[in-house]
Structure formats: structure tokens, C-alpha cells
């Protein structure tokens, strides 16, 4: 049987909040019996957008990560709350608006903090994948329809086919070590989880400091080269996909106009600033 999954393209979200506003528009004041009680006009949003800013000016990279109910196949909330929450045949997890009445304790059962408490209706609530709309024949949830940058892709596939797609396209889930088997997949999650080391190569030639294109830049750790790249027209270079807290690194830039090195200890992403090339004869003078 084919089941719903949602793929989130990390790096496409630019924080416009259309998905959050559309979700509120769908649920605030609207009762969908069997799916969800009317959402409160004021309260936490079941879709949250997290932010990560890496580097420092001028090399800054911002990533926004939409986080919502993962519709887990081994859902911690179902284990905790029993028959107040059910798993539909199409994979969607629904908190029963009647059976879960008054169960504020359910909120804490989700490791993804995806359950919000509706003070007005006294029910725990989530993003229900717009199950009420899919059941009417919609092909995609509202968040996908309103997103101007194509962050969301709802796909209905057999579990085996989805596993294969995930493996082929490098899709990952959040906190996979918990083994909850989420149905929300992230494409390009490296941008959220890994770090970069970047810098800008420059040189003083004839009294003018200029950006140096085409410098061969090597990243090494403990004397062993890890990666190489070339500086672009602005003299910028960047090494991506480095592990957070990766330890001490050395960056060496080589160019016909000289050589420069910089050392850093990687906690979060680092922008090294300017690497000013020094000519071999200048080094010899030292």
C-alpha cells in the first residue's frame, strides 16, 4: 500500500512563513471532526522554522529548516498515548481530537517538539499532513501549494520504494538515531548538520591589494591533506561538509604570486577572513 511522505528541500526555504500562515488559515476556527479540533488563533504553530547562520560577514550562509510532525512509523507519541493517537493506513498520524481531550501530557512525548497545546480546545495538536484535504482528493498539502520556492514535495509511495528513493537521493530524517522512522525526509540536510571553512585570498601587487583568483587552496588536518579547491574571482574559497567540532585544521593557499596559511579549530563554521599571499623572497627575508 502506498503511503504519504514529505520531502523537504533544505536550502530552498527562505523563511517567508507562507506555510505557517496557510496552516493557520486552514485550521484556526475550522473544525474537521475526526481530524482536528479548531486551532487557537493565538498559540504555538505546529510548523516551526528553525534558523542556522554560519560564518561571519562577508561569508555568511543562512539555512532555514521547517520542522513539523514527522508522522513517524514507530511514533513515540503513539507508544506514550495509546489509542488517543492513531496511525492511518496511508502513514499519517492523527491525534484524535475527542480521545485526546485534556491530555496536555501528550505534548512532551514528541522528541521533535512537534505537538502544540491548544489552550482553547484543551487538546494537543500537530500538523496533520492536511489529511482532511488529501482524503478529498488533494494531491499535496497546503504548505506545498503556497511555498514559492519549492521546499516541500509530498510523495505517495510504497515503503520499499520510498526507502530506495531515500537511499538514491541521499534523503535523511531528523534524529534518525531515535529509530522513530519519520515520514518527513530532508534533502541536503548536510547544510544543516555540517560546517564549512572559508576564506578570501588576496595579494598586494604594485601597492594595490587585490582579490586573487585561481589560488590552489589545500585543507589539511594533522599534516594530511583533506581537500583541495581553487579560489574564485573574488578570491573566495570554501570547504564544505566538515563535521561540527572537527578539531584543528590548516589552510594553505598557493599562487604564482605567493603563499599564505591559516590555522583554525573548527567548532562551528569559520570564515578565516583574508589570506594575504606572501612571496617566497619575502619569506626568505624573515
Amino acid at each position, binding site marked *: 500500500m502506498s503511503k504519504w511522505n514529505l520531502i523537504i528541500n533544505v536550502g530552498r526555504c527562505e523563511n517567508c*512563513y507562507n506555510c505557517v*500562515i496557510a496552516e493557520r488559515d486552514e485550521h484556526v476556527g475550522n473544525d474537521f471532526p475526526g481530524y482536528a479540533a479548531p486551532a487557537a488563533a493565538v498559540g504555538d504553530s505546529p510548523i516551526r522554522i528553525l534558523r542556522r547562520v554560519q560564518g561571519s560577514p562577508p561569508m555568511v550562509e543562512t539555512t532555514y529548516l521547517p520542522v513539523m510532525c514527522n508522522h513517524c512509523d514507530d511514533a513515540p507519541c503513539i507508544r506514550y498515548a495509546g489509542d488517543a493517537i492513531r496511525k492511518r493506513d496511508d502513514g499519517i498520524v492523527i491525534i484524535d481530537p475527542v480521545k485526546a481531550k485534556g491530555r496536555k501530557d501528550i505534548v512532551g512525548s514528541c522528541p521533535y517538539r512537534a505537538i502544540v497545546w491548544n489552550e482553547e480546545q484543551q487538546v494537543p495538536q500537530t500538523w496533520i499532513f492536511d489529511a482532511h484535504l488529501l482524503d478529498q482528493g488533494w494531491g499535496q498539502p497546503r504548505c506545498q501549494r503556497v511555498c514559492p520556492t519549492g521546499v516541500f514535495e509530498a510523495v505517495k509511495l510504497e515503503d520499499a520504494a520510498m526507502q530506495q528513493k531515500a537511499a538514491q537521493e541521499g534523503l535523511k530524517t531528523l534524529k534518525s538515531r531515535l529509530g522513530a522512522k519519520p515520514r518527513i525526509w530532508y534533502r541536503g540536510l548536510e547544510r544543516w548538520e555540517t560546517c564549512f571553512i572559508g576564506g578570501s585570498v588576496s595579494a598586494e601587487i604594485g601597492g594595490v591589494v587585490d582579490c586573487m583568483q585561481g589560488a590552489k587552496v589545500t585543507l589539511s588536518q594533522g599534516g594530511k591533506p583533506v581537500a583541495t579547491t581553487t579560489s574564485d574571482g573574488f578570491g573566495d574559497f570554501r570547504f564544505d561538509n566538515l563535521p561540527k567540532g572537527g578539531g584543528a585544521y590548516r589552510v594553505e593557499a598557493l599562487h604564482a604570486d605567493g603563499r599564505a596559511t591559516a590555522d583554525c579549530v573548527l567548532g562551528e563554521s569559520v570564515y578565516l577572513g583574508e589570506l594575504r599571499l606572501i612571496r617566497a623572497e619575502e619569506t626568505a627575508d624573515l
Partner: protein
Amino acid sequence: MGESRSDYDIFTAILTRLGLGAVFTEGCSEIDWAKRVFDSSDLPGHISWRNFCRKGYFVVPPEKPELRQPVDMRWFAEGRRKDVPEPHPLPSQWAEEFGMGLQTPSGKLEFVPEILKRNTADNPDRPPLNRYMPSWEGPRATERAKSYPLQMIATHSRYSFHTYADGKNSAVSQVEDHRALVSGHRFYLLRLNPADAAARGIGHRDLVKIFNDRGAVICAADISPLVAQGVVKSYEASAEFQLIDVAGETVEIGGCMNMLTPDRPQTQGTSSMSPNSCLVEVEKWRAADSFKTARAGRRAALEPVA
């Protein structure tokens, strides 16, 4: 779908109830109107009404090259008489020959405009030749920058449109990157660089006081390297204005940054506002705890007594 009706149906029904149905419809149904618009266009010269209805559309052929609109300014580039159909410049505004050259006194492109030389000689803000001018309220306005070292820009807002959709308990007000909820109040955000925040002991989402000699506004701090050091950023469009007295000081907590920005125009002698030429100082709001305690007390007082 279902019982839904077209806009035309809805307005017809409303106007019929108002006794104006016939005036509104002129006796026409929707399809009658479509036919009337069809007849009023050039379409009957290309396709019959019957064929148009059967086909459902008509592809308008591209304009004949000789009928295309002349390109703006090409006449000037090619040294011809102006051939663009627009009324300006008026006949008396041409420098020499009617329709030839621009409406400048010389009839040419003027890098140093003759008119500015003549009319704004007494206005130092409008030199005839464009050049960089240090801001009259910016980091180089040394005296003022000593007391208020941060340059504030208060741009158009991202999530609201001017004051529309801000405040008023809207869903937009609950956008975490628009207003931050602290002690039951949604504070406007002030974005600042980690170095500026660290120098002032400010943490992410701390309440901060932004002030100069014009007033003081309380915002929640949003710390990230997305703002350059020495610059703080907020929005000019708060729909809230809420002055409160806390710990012997009057501050504004709605987010009305316009209190802090200068009243003078960006360029003297022109109509221009200056929300981005503004020096401020920012500090962690010392009265934040008094404010939070007072809020908590008020909320407790509102709770029903068991």
C-alpha cells in the same frame, strides 16, 4: 462547485435586493456580456463569435513590424526628431529646435545639470555633480556618534505591509521572526551583530533598550552575523505604539522605531524620509525584570480565584 456561485451572480443578487438589478445587468447574462465585449473588440474581424465559442480562445498574431511602438530614447541616440507619443517635454521646453534633443537647457545629457547649478546653489545637500557625502547622522557625524555609536536602519518590514497585518493579534504578529513573545507581550525585533551584542552583554531574545535623545524603544534582540558590526536593523512599520512607565522611565514597547529616527528629510529641499540615517545606542534593558514581574502579577490577578 456545490452551491457556490459566480461573482456576477452574487453581485446581481445583491443589487437586485437593492432594487438596482436591471441597472447592474442591463438585462444581460454572463454570456451576453462576453458577447458584448467580443463585439466591442477587434476580434470579429478575425473570427466569428460561433467559431470563437467553439474553439474557446484566439491567439492574437504578433504586431506587424511597421506598427510597433518606437523604442524610448532611440530617437535621441540616433539624432532624430522625438517619435515617442508622449506630451512631455512641452513645446516651450525644448532648448532649440522642437522635438530635437533633451529638455535640458543644453538639449544634451548633463553630467552637471544646469538647472541644479542655477536653483540649488544654496543647498549643500544637492550639489550639481553627484558625489559621496558623509551622512549628517551616521558613523562620521562624530559628535553624535560618541553618544550613539550604532547606525540603525529601519527598513520596510518583511512580514507585514507597512502597518497592515502587524499587531491586531494577527497570525503575522505571531511569526517568530517578526515579533518575539516575551512575558506575554510581542516585542519587535532588533537585529544586531554578535560582536556588538557581546560588548553589551546582550543575549539572543534578551529585551534591549534602543535609544537616543529622541526617545527609547524596547525590542527583543535577534543576534546573528547577518548584520554588520556597528549596524543594527529593525523595521519602520510597527502598528503598535505603547508608551509605558517602568522603573521611573518612559519607554515605548510596541516597536515604534520612528520615534528614534530623524524628522528631517534625507536630502534638504526634497520630499524624502530618513529612516536609515539614525544613530542609536543599545543596552540590555535594565528594567526588564520589573516589567516581567509586573506582567506576571497582572496575569495572576486576572486568573479566576478558586
